[in-house]
Structure formats: C-alpha cells, structure tokens
C-alpha cells in the first residue's frame, strides 16, 4: 500500500507566461483514491492532463512507477482517463467504443525466445476477436449495461454514457484511472449513486484513482486523500477527516464545509484572543501576540443559556432557519467588536433572543495567516509618486525618480472602488472570505500581484474593481542595489 505509483516533482505549467500550475509536488500511492479539489481555474484539471500526457509541464518531472514519463505521449502510458464530457466516439456503438483500446493492445505471444544474435525476443500479438468480446462483455457487466453493446452511444442517457466511458477506460486494465469531473453532468440522485459505484469499483479493482472535482462533498465522501488546490498551488494534502477538521489555512476551511473564520491573536500557548474575548484552545507554539486566523465549524458551537457556567460569550440571534436535521442560527456576538457567527444546533431560537455560546477548546482551529501585510516591489516615478503594478500611486516620499523601492500596505488600507476607473489600477476579486465582521478579499492586479484587502462591503468573485491607496498609508523603503 505504501509504494509510490505517481510522483509529481516541482511541476509548473504556464500558458503563454500565465502560470496555471505553480511548482507542485505530490506523491500518489498505489491503490489510493486521490481527489484533486479546488475551485475552477485552480489548476487541478491541468495537473490531471499532465499525468495523462495531454500537456507537458513547463518544468518539473512526473514519475510513474519510478520512471520519468514527463515527455511520454499519452498512448504509451498505462493510464486511462474518463473525460468530463465522456468523449465517446459517435461513429462507434457501445461495443466499438469499449473495444477501441483493446484492438490496439498487444500481449506476449508464447514464451520469450532467443534469436540468432543471442537476444531474448518476446513475440507480441493482438488480442483475438473472442478475447476482445469477452473483455468487453465483462466490462459491460461491471457497469450494469450487459445488453447495450449494439446500441449507438447517443441513444444512451447521460448516466449510461458515463458508465460506458468508465468501462472504456477500465477495460484496458490501467494501473491508474484518471477521472476529470466525471459526475458533473449528472443530476443529484444519479451523482450519489455513481459516487457509491465508483467507490465500489475502486475497492474491487484495487487500482489507483485520481479524481478531479470542485465538489467538496464528493471529495469528502469518496477519497482516501484530498489535495486541495488554489491558484495552481497545493493548499493542503490530507485524508478527508484531517482536511475537514484541521484545515491548513482559511482558504481550505472556507472551501471545505461551512466555517466561521475570524481574526485573532495568540495571547499565549492555549489562549486565543478574538475581538477582545479570550478563549481556551489547544494550539501551542505560536509566537507571542501573533495575529492568526481562527476557524470554528458551525456544528462545533453549542447554544447554551446565558447563565450557564459553560457560556463563553453572549450573542444576539439574527435569524434561525430550519434545515431538516438542524437549525442554522446566525448570531452577532456581544462586545466592542461584534462578529457574525453561524451556528448549527438542534435548539430552536428566535431572532432577537440573547443566547450563550460554548465551544470546546479542541474545536478552535488556529492557523497562521498566509500574509500579514501586502509587500511588493516598485519604482519611484517621480517624487511623491510610486510606480506599482503598472499604476502611478501618489505617496509620501521624496526619493528620486527611478529608485527601486519596497512598498508595504496594510490589508485595511487598500481601498476598493466599484468602478474600475475610480481606482489607480484595475483588479479582479479572486477570493472572498467572510471573517465575522468584515470580508477579506484577495484582489489580483493585472500584473498578477495579489493584494489582500480587508473591506466591509461585499463583492463577488470575478468582479472587476479599482484599487486606491491613501498616500500616507503606503510605507515606502528604498531597496539598496546589493539587496537586489
């Protein structure tokens, strides 16, 4: 179980200088069910296509059973793919589609013989018609489509086409099966059924599955290992329980499951300060007064009476919605800085009620902030104007024109404007995480620098915004040449 079948080493991929996959390394063990999970455009499909051989990495190597297959064309890899839109050949019937790979396959014919030059030769032969038809029928049986061999592929329903696509890939007995969002086109009920069937097939066949999806629930249900990706980088690798319970950063926590993500500081080991309230937690080893992100899952918060000894903090109920197996309560905590918290509990409360909240120390998940301040390199355009990300920002600095500078700006000092033209530069929102009382955005300038921005107003991902920074908020330091 522990031997490696695929090793991805420092692989990067760019399309015309636009990085899609950034220096990822990943090891996949034999027989594992690995899911690449992430929002669209995170590089998960590109990674899969590089394993399949449809794309060549810009740099880095991919090993398969210890051999370098980075540049090997797809037809020479013992890997098969189930495509997103199935890609069943319309000119062949179901049988023809499944037999497509088998007809090209060669198998050893008899024992190896030694030829006149003393070299051992293995004669190869194609499969016989009987062998092919037996294998195809077995594959059809596996996907419950026994009597469908003669059918035209376009006469099948989406779910049936999906099964044919799986049978077509598996009939070649690959060592690794790649699945590119295979259930995306199916309805919810069918998707659930296929999830179970795929898991069963994985168990039965014992081969390695590499699965790509943006559906976190699918990933949590099916995988042995989840690889969470964002922006071409791996955020976390771990089994579903670990990824859910101990997300590596705010992005993972936000993407997988629902969560309350708040900013806080570590006062000391096992004690976190959130908006002036101190809570006991179990995390150690953070720096004294280090700013951190705290993640609490809605189902880990218990509603208790305000007088209860367990009550850690009081809150006003904003709304309470029945969700079938629980109530979803939104509440605003008391204190100087009030945070909005989502709670899943079995207690029904009314809007306007004051409730007490209890969270076990173990359920506070503390993580380092991915960045504390925006820091970027720029150049003085002229006195009191700095050139950053192709924009001219007014600033307070008398450094002469052309001086290389390092510029720092706090998250909440970056202003966003609805109208791109109102900002000094234009940018796109690429991530938005709600932090209880404000939103933390990652905003990508057209030069691909990502600004972290704290803001009270709501934007959606992919919105275009303008970026403005007050001149006195730009912290400018000269970069000495020897540093560069």
């Amino acid at each position, binding site marked *: 179980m522990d031997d490696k079948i695929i090793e991805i080493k420092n692989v990067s991929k760019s399309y015309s200088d636009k990085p899609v996959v950034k220096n990822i390394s990943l090891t996949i063990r034999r027989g594992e069910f690995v899911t690449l999970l992430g929002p669209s455009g995170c590089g998960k499909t590109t990674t899969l296509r590089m394993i399949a051989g449809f794309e060549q990495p810009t740099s880095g190597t991919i090993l398969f059973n210890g051999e370098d297959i980075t540049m090997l064309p797809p037809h020479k890899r013992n890997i098969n793919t189930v*495509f*997103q*839109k199935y890609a069943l050949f319309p000119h062949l019937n179901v049988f023809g589609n499944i037999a497509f790979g088998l007809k090209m396959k060669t198998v050893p014919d008899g024992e190896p013989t030694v030829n006149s030059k003393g070299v051992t030769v293995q004669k190869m032969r194609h499969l016989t018609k009987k062998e092919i038809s037996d294998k195809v029928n077995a594959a059809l049986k596996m996907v419950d489509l026994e009597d469908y061999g003669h059918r035209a592929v376009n006469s099948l329903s989406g779910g049936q086409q999906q099964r044919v696509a799986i049978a077509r890939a598996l009939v070649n007995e690959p060592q690794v099966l790649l699945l590119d969002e295979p259930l995306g086109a199916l309805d919810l009920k069918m998707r659930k059924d296929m999830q179970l069937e795929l898991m069963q097939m994985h168990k039965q066949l014992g081969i390695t599955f590499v699965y790509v999806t943006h559906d976190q629930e699918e990933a949590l249900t099916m995988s042995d290992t989840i690889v969470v990706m964002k922006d071409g980088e791996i955020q976390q690798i771990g089994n579903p329980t670990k990824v859910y319970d101990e997300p590596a950063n705010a992005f993972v926590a936000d993407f997988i499951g629902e969560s309350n993500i708040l900013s806080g500081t570590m006062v000391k080991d096992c004690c976190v300060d959130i908006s002036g309230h101190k809570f006991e937690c179990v995390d150690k080893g953070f720096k004294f007064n280090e700013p951190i992100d705290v993640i609490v899952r809605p189902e880990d918060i218990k509603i208790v009476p305000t007088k209860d000894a367990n009550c850690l903090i009081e809150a006003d109920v904003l709304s309470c919605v029945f969700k079938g197996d629980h109530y979803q309560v939104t509440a605003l905590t008391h204190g100087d800085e009030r945070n909005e918290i989502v709670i899943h509990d079995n207690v029904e409360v009314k809007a306007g009620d004051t409730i007490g909240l209890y969270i076990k120390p173990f359920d506070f998940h503390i993580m380092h902030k991915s960045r504390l301040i925006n820091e970027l390199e720029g150049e003085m355009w002229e006195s009191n104007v700095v050139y950053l990300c192709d924009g001219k920002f007014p600033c307070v600095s008398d450094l002469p024109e052309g001086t290389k500078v390092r510029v720092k700006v706090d998250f909440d000092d970056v202003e966003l404007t609805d109208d791109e033209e109102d900002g000094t530069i234009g940018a796109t929102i690429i991530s938005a995480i709600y932090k209880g009382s404000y939103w933390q955005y990652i905003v990508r300038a057209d030069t691909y620098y990502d600004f972290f921005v704290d803001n009270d107003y709501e934007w959606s991902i992919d919105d275009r915004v303008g970026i403005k920074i007050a001149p006195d908020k730009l912290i400018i330091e000269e970069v000495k040449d020897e540093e560069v």
Partner: protein
Amino acid sequence: MKKFKFRFTRRAFAYPYMIFLLLFVVVPLVLILINAFLDESDKFTFQNFAEFFSDAGGGLTVLGNSLIIGLVTTLICLVIGYPCAYLLAKYHASNRVLVLLFILPMWVNFLIRTLSTKAIFMALDVPLGMGTVLFGMVYNYLPYMILPLHTTLVSIDHSYIEAAEDLGADKLTVLLKTVLPLSLPGIVSGITMTFIPAISTFAISEILSSSKIFLFGDAINMHFSKATNSFGVGSVMSLVMLVLVVVANVFVNLTSKDEEVKSVL
C-alpha cells in the same frame, strides 16, 4: 363574395423569389421537358430519346467519358484536398490567412483561370490533352473539396482525439480510426460538391485540350448552340444530367441525415 386582398405579412418577402423561381427555374425545366419530346417540326416524338440512348451521335460515350473524368478529378481532389484540409484544420487557430489562400482562386472567374492555365501550358510547351484537362479540373474544383472537409475537420471535438490517444492510439491510428470516420460527412459533401460540377463542366475540357476532349457539358452546349437545331437531343441530355444530380443529392441527404442522428450526442 370574398375579395382578394393583398396583406403585407412576412410571407410577402418570399414573393419576389417565388416569381424568380417560377420564371427562371420551373418554366425552363418545363420547356426542356417539352423540347425533349418534340422533333424538328415541333411534333410529338420519342426520337430524341432513341437517338441519345442508341448512342447514334456518340452522346452516351461522351457521358461515359465525363463520368470517368469526373470520378478521377474527384479522387485526385480528395487525395490532395484531405491532407490539405487536415493540416489547415490543425493549425486553424493560428493561421486563418492560410485558409484564405486556399479559397482565393475561387474569387477569379473560372474562364480567366482556365485560359491563363492554357497560356502557361502553351508557354511551357506542354502538349494539351487528357493530362492538362485533368489538371485544369482539379485546379478548378479543389477548393470545393477542401472547404467542406475543412469545416468538418475543424468542428471535430478535440476530446475525441485525446480519448483515442488515451486508449493507446498513436498519431497514425488516431487519424485513421478517429479523425477519418468522424470527417466522413465532410468527405461526402466534398465529393458531391466536386463530382456534380465536374461531370457537367464545359469549356475547361474544350480550352485545355484544344477541343480534342469533349465532355457532356460541352456536348449539351453544342446541341443548343449549333445550327444543326438538335434542341431535342440537347434537352434529353439535360434531363439525364438532372437525374444524375438528383441521384447524387439524394445520396448526400441520406448520409447527412445519418450524421444528424450522430451529432445529437
């Protein structure tokens, strides 16, 4: 009593074309049909059919020759056109200018093209004959082969090719077992778009063979233009031509209907 009232509806836009169709397509066809049954003194007769099908004037032989030349032309066009269209489709995204270059000859009148070709052959001292006629035909009809092929090849979903590669097909197998069958509709329409005009062509053979090689189109042309006044036989030949075109079109429709079912996926 109902009064006829002209109402200006959307249907009215079709009237000009309907009138055009009636005057310049239906009426001439009827005239040809009538002509085919009239002798020189405008009396009803089957003589024209008898004359053509007994090959008295060599009409049947000319038809045979035309069919053979048409077939050979189409075949050469396919053999040259397919790789051409395939390469064009493959580099389509990066090179639209190339596609334009292949269509460009269609913008020049075919008579001018053919006369220029003849001039070039004469200048090079190439003897005019079957070879030069075939060259002229292929030169004229190649774009009609490449265009439909190109359209079909460009529209083939790249995931089919990737799926084939994934299943173990090398480049040649992908071409033979995936691209070729998927481009069949393009091949069929390319063949018809080349074959039908090629069998009815005139002037090309006459010009490029110094009137030595005589094709069906030329024969019809002669029957109608010559003072011999054999409109009847000419009409019969036109009808034969019409039947051939209809047969070819039915054939195309059958295959393209099949394709509709296939493309539902």
